[in-house]
C-alpha cells in the first residue's frame, strides 16, 4: 500500500526520494542489530585473539564469513517477512513436536550459557576499572531488563542501534594501533594458512562466534516483532547486508588493533580484557579505554539480544504472545526474559564457577542445533505453500547449501578439536 502512495511523485524527484528514504528508514534496524550483536563478548575476545596470535593472516576468513553471514541472515529475514512468523513457530508448525522440543530446549540452554559469557565480559571490564563485580553485574542486569521491559519496540530498537553505532570505538582503536595497511590488504584478499592446530582451531572459532543458532533465531523473530510487511523485503535485505558488512568491518578493525600492536610485540592473550590491558603500553591509554568500553557495549548488547532470543524461541514454540509492543499480553515472554537475565547474573557471581567448561558445553550445544535449524530453514524456504514467489531459486539453494555445509563442517570440526586438544 505504501508502494501505491509512492506512485504519486515522479521517480527521480526530490519528493520521491524523500518518501522512499522515509520508507527505508522505517524498515531498517533489525538486520543491523542482529548482525552487530554477533560481535558480542565472545566475538570481541575471539577477534582479539585472532589478531594477537596470527596478525593479518586470518582476515581473508573474515571476508568469507561476511558473505556467509549475509546469506544466512537474509534467509532468516525473508522467512520472517514472508510468513510473519518466527523460526521456532515455523519449526513447530512444519516439523515434528519432538524436534521442536529438542531444538527449543538446546537453544535455551546454550543461550543461557552465552548470557553467562556476556556477564563475564562485563566482569572483565569491572576488574579493569576496579569496580566490584557484585555491583557491575547486577547493574547491567537491571539496565537491560529495564530497557526491554519498559521500552516500546521503537525505543528498544533505538537503544540497540545506538549500541551498534558505538562499535565505532573499535575502528578508532584499529587506527590508533597503526597497523600495516599493506599487510592488512594482502591478508584480506589472499588466503594464507598456517599448518598448525592452533591456527585451525582459532579459524573455526572465528566462524563459530559469528554464525550462531541464537543469531538465526533472533534475526527472524526481531523482524517479525517489528511487523515489517513482506513488500519491504527489498529494503530489509539491504538492512541485513549492511548489518553483515558493519559486523565484519568492526571485526576487521579489532583484528587490526591487536595485530598492529600485540602480534608485532609478540604478546599472546586469551581474552578481550587482557587485550585491553596489553594495548595500553603499545597504543596508549586511550586505546585501552576504547577497547574496554567497546567490550562493555558489546557485552550489554549481546546480553539483551541473547536473552530476548530465548524468550522469542520458547513463546513462539508454545504459541504464546511475545511482542515487545504487547507487554501486557506477553507475560510468558517477560517471565522468561527475567529468568534468563537474572538467573545467569546470579550464577556468574558464584565464586569458583567453572566458566570455561560451561562455555565449551554451550558451544557444543550450538554445534548440535546449528545443522538442524539450517536444514529446517532451507526446507522451509523451499516450501512453495509457505513462501510463494519468495521461495528459494535453484541458485539460492546451491548457495544456501554450500554455506550451510561449510558452517556445519566447521562447527563439527570445532567440537572435535576441542576434545582432542
Amino acid at each position, binding site marked *: *500500500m*505504501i508502494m*501505491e*502512495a509512492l506512485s*504519486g*511523485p515522479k521517480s527521480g524527484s526530490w*519528493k520521491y526520494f524523500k*518518501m522512499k528514504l522515509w520508507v527505508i528508514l522505517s524498515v531498517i534496524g533489525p538486520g543491523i542489530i542482529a548482525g552487530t550483536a554477533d560481535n558480542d563478548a565472545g566475538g570481541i575476545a575471539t577477534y582479539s585473539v585472532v589478531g594477537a596470535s596470527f596478525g593479518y593472516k586470518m582476515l581473508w576468513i573474515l571476508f568469507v564469513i561476511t558473505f556467509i553471514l549475509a546469506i544466512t541472515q537474509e534467509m532468516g529475514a525473508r522467512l520472517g517477512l*514472508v*510468513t*510473519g512468523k518466527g523460526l521456532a*513457530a515455523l519449526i*513447530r*508448525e512444519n516439523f515434528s*513436536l*519432538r524436534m521442536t*522440543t529438542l531444538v527449543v530446549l538446546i537453544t535455551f540452554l546454550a543461550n543461557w550459557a552465552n548470557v553467562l559469557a556476556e556477564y563475564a565480559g562485563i566482569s572483565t571490564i569491572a576488574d579493569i576499572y576496579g569496580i566490584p563485580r557484585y555491583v557491575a553485574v547486577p547493574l547491567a542486569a537491571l539496565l537491560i531488563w529495564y530497557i526491554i521491559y519498559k521500552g516500546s519496540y521503537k525505543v528498544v530498537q533505538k537503544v540497540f542501534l545506538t549500541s551498534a553505532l558505538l562499535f565505532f570505538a573499535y575502528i578508532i582503536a584499529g587506527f590508533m594501533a597503526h597497523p600495516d595497511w599493506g599487510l592488512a590488504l594482502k591478508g584480506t584478499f589472499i588466503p594464507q594458512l598456517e599448518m598448525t592446530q592452533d591456527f585451525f582451531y582459532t579459524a573455526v572459532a572465528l566462524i563459530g562466534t559469528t554464525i550462531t543458532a541464537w543469531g538465526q533465531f533472533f534475526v527472524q523473530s526481531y523482524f517479525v516483532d517489528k*511487523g515489517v*510487511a513482506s513488500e519491504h523485503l527489498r529494503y530489509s535485505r539491504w538492512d541485513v547486508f549492511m548489518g553483515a558488512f558493519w559486523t565484519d568491518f568492526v571485526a576487521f578493525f579489532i583484528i587490526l588493533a591487536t595485530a598492529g600492536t600485540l602480534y608485532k610485540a609478540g604478546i599472546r592473550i586469551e581474552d578481550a580484557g587482557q587485550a585491553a590491558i596489553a594495548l595500553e603500553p603499545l597504543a596508549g591509554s586511550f586505546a585501552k579505554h576504547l577497547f574496554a568500553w567497546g567490550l562493555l557495549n558489546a557485552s550489554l548488547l549481546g546480553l539483551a539480544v541473547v536473552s530476548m532470543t530465548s524468550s522469542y524461541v520458547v*513463546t513462539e*514454540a*508454545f*504459541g*504464546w*504472545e*511475545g*511482542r515487545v509492543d*504487547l507487554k501486557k*499480553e506477553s507475560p510468558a515472554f517477560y517471565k522468561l526474559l527475567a529468568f534468563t537475565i537474572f538467573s545467569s547474573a546470579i550464577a556468574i557471581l558464584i565464586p569458583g564457577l567453572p566458566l570455561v567448561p560451561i562455555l565449551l558445553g554451550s558451544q557444543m550445544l550450538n554445534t548440535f542445533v546449528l545443522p538442524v535449524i539450517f536444514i529446517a530453514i532451507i526446507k522451509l524456504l523451499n516450501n512453495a*505453500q*509457505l513462501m*510463494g514467489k519468495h521461495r528459494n531459486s535453484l541458485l539460492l539453494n546451491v548457495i544456501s547449501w554450500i554455506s550451510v555445509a561449510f558452517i556445519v563442517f566447521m562447527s563439527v570440526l570445532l567440537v572435535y578439536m576441542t576434545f582432542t586438544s
Partner: protein
Amino acid sequence: MIVKEREISGYPEVTGIVINRKGLSAVINFVFIENLGYGEITLKKSDCWKEHYELADDEFMLARDVLDQQIFDVEGVRVVRVNDIELAKIEEKFALISVDISNRALLRRLGLVGLPILRKTKSKFIDWGNLSVVKGSLGNLKLKISKAKLVKLHPADIANLIENLNFNESIKLVQSLDKETAAEVLEEVEPEYKDTLLERISPKELAHIMEEMPSAQAADVIKDLSEHKKRLVFRKLGVRKAMTLHKLSKYGNDVAGGIMNPEFMSVNKDATVGQAISKIRKHSDEHSSIYHVFVVDEGKRLEGVVSVRTLLLANSSQKVNEIMGKVIRTVRVRTHIQEVARVMTKYNLMSIAVVDKNKVIQGLITVDDILRFLIPNA
C-alpha cells in the same frame, strides 16, 4: 485425517484419512472405514485408497492445518498452540469436537506419559464451536474468532481490537469490513493510531470509506493525511463530497467549523409543517440524529429553529415561521469549541447552528460532536 467444515451438529466431520507408507501417500475415504481404534484402523474392504486426492474447498487436514497451529484470542493476541485434537462419534460418524491446549497433551505426545507431574496436570479443551478456521493471507489456516462474531461487535469494540493488532493484521481487518462499518470503525480508532493506519490504506479505498462517513469526521481524516495523500484521495472522491470536505478541512480541529456537520436539516420559512415533516422523512437516512430543523430565508440566512417535537405536535398546514423559535443561539465558524460547549450547556441545547458573519448557516454541532472533542479517547 481430512475433515469437512461444519457437517455434523456444527462439528467438522472426518471425511478421509491420509496414509503415508514408504514415501507414498494415499487417501482413504471415511465411508470405507469400519472402526477407529487404538493404534489400528479397520477397513470395510481392501484397495479402497486413492493416490490422487484434491482437497475440496471446505475440507482441511487436521495434522497440517490444525494440530500445532496458533490460536488467537478475540483481540488477535497469540494465546497458545493446539497441542492435541479430540474426535468423537456423533450420529455414527466421527467429528472433530475440540482441541486440547494443555501441557499434558504436549507431554503425552512427547511420550512422557509416565512422569509423575502428568498426574497433576489436566487437559484443557476448547470446544470447536468457539473456534473457526480462517484462510490466512498465504492460504494456510489459522484459528481465530469467526468473522461472523466479529461483525456483530460494535464499531467501537472493533476499533479497540484494531489497535491491538499489528499493522498488517489491522489493515487486513479494515479492508475485510464493508465500507460503512469500516467508516464507523475508523471514526472510533484512537487518533495517534489512526494516522498511521490511514497512511497505509490506499487512496482509492480511503475515498470509498470516506463517502460513507459523515462529512465532519471525513474532514478530520483529511486533515490528518499528508499533503500528498490528501491530493490523491481528493482525486478519487466524488465532486460534491470533495467540495464539502475541502471547505471543512480549512478549519482547525478546535473551532466550531472544524467539528461541525455540514449536513443539516433546513426548510424555507414559507414551508408548511407538512412539507417540513416530509423532508425529514425523505432525508432522515443522511443524518445520524435530527433534533431540530432550521428555518432559513432565500439567502440561507438563519431565521429561526423548530424542534422535531414541535413539528409533530403542530397542525400540518401551519407555516413553520409561525411556530418557530425566533431567539436562537448560534456560534460562528471560528468560535472555540470550549466556548461552543459553554453556550450549549448554559442553554441546555442538544444542537447548535454554526453561522458565518452574514448569518448564513454553515453547519450544525450536536452534543455528540462536543463529547467526542472533550473525551477523544473513549
